[in-house]
């Protein structure tokens, strides 16, 4: 008798199409291919974003990709994941990650197991250790770049890796101060 309205069905696993007027881009396509939609969902699930107004002082560990648009002071460790410092990101920390993409500002050393990529508006003051480093024209950099090929020990026993934390974890410096910018 009563037919449930299609519009109020739960949308788990499906993205609600947003009108172009809300997205701010007039040419935003409403209908997307299933592949693109699936990728967007994956990205949204796997990338954590620290927003512009967030200030973190302390240690930040994680096992997923992270984008920072706010400020972080201390230490960032994303050993098997990608850290992106957004255009508004301000980092004063030691950074350990698989790959680091810098569009904002980093003061501190960066150690990456794969790649460091400094974009044209990015600034890095510190030493970089990574097998691959790309610095765009216009980027600011002061420090050293170490791309030395480390000799591999073929018969060395594999050290037991410590178990990675399951999700983003913030260990505040004493005293704890995680808050928003005034």
């Amino acid at each position, binding site marked *: 008798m009563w037919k449930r309205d299609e519009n109020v069905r739960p949308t788990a696993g499906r993205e609600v199409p947003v009108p172009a007027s809300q997205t701010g881009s007039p040419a935003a396509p409403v209908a997307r291919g299933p592949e693109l939609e699936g990728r967007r969902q994956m990205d949204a699930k796997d990338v954590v974003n620290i927003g512009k107004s967030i200030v973190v002082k302390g240690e930040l560990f994680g096992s997923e990709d992270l984008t920072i648009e706010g400020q972080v002071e201390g230490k960032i460790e994303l050993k098997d994941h990608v850290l992106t410092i957004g255009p508004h990101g301000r980092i004063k920390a030691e950074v350990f990650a698989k790959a680091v993409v810098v569009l904002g500002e980093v003061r501190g050393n960066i150690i990456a197991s794969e790649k460091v990529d*400094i974009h044209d508006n990015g600034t890095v003051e510190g030493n970089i250790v990574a097998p691959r480093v790309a610095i765009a024209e216009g980027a600011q950099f002061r420090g*050293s770049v170490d791309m030395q090929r480390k000799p591999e020990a073929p018969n060395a026993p594999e050290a037991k890796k410590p178990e990675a934390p399951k999700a983003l974890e913030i260990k505040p410096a004493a005293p704890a101060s995680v808050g928003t910018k005034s």
Partner: protein
Amino acid sequence: MSGFGKVTGFLSRFASRRTAEEEAEPVPTRIEPELVVPSKALKKFVAFLRMRTSPTLLDLGSVVGANIEYFGEQLGCRIFIGDIFADLDRFQRDHKLPELPAFLETRFPQEPESVDGILCWDLFDFLDKPSACVVAEHLMRVLRPNGALFGFFATSHPAEARFTKFIVADDSNLRHRPYSTPRMRRAVMQNRDIIKLFEGLRVSDSFLLHTNVREILFRRPDYLSKP
């Protein structure tokens, strides 16, 4: 005055003001095209670095991603980026050039005898004598025995010179990319002045290029190492 005369007089006021405004505006800098220039000393410098295992390189020029990729990936170097040109530019803009030598004393934190190769590019063409002496002294301090120092020295004195980014195209070619910081060159250094400036080093190779630039490769003799 006739009506026409009034109008032309009125317009000429605007015309003259326009000219004054134009004079006040900064003259747009002419961006020179990028040149590919063969380099003879670079080949020797790179060959020397190739012989070293995991060499350390000090680059006094501005940061160039292509050079970092070249030296880092091909030679497995550790590279310190100095960018003394940025300091020079800043001190000139702030009219603080007399303070530059004291500042440069703090710009070389490297340990003594810790660097295998130094890329000076054309830095010494832009430094005054006190600053040049400070930089040369520190470079000789940080250079390892048998280490190499590579620099360009102009032979002519152009009215105006710009800083240039030198991009390594391959072992024997450099791309010269001028960028828009106008600055007067100081007097051209004579060979004897250059040799005197780097008194602790010996000239390994010296080439005069078609562009009237001297490329000089210095080596630090072994006997200067610490006992």
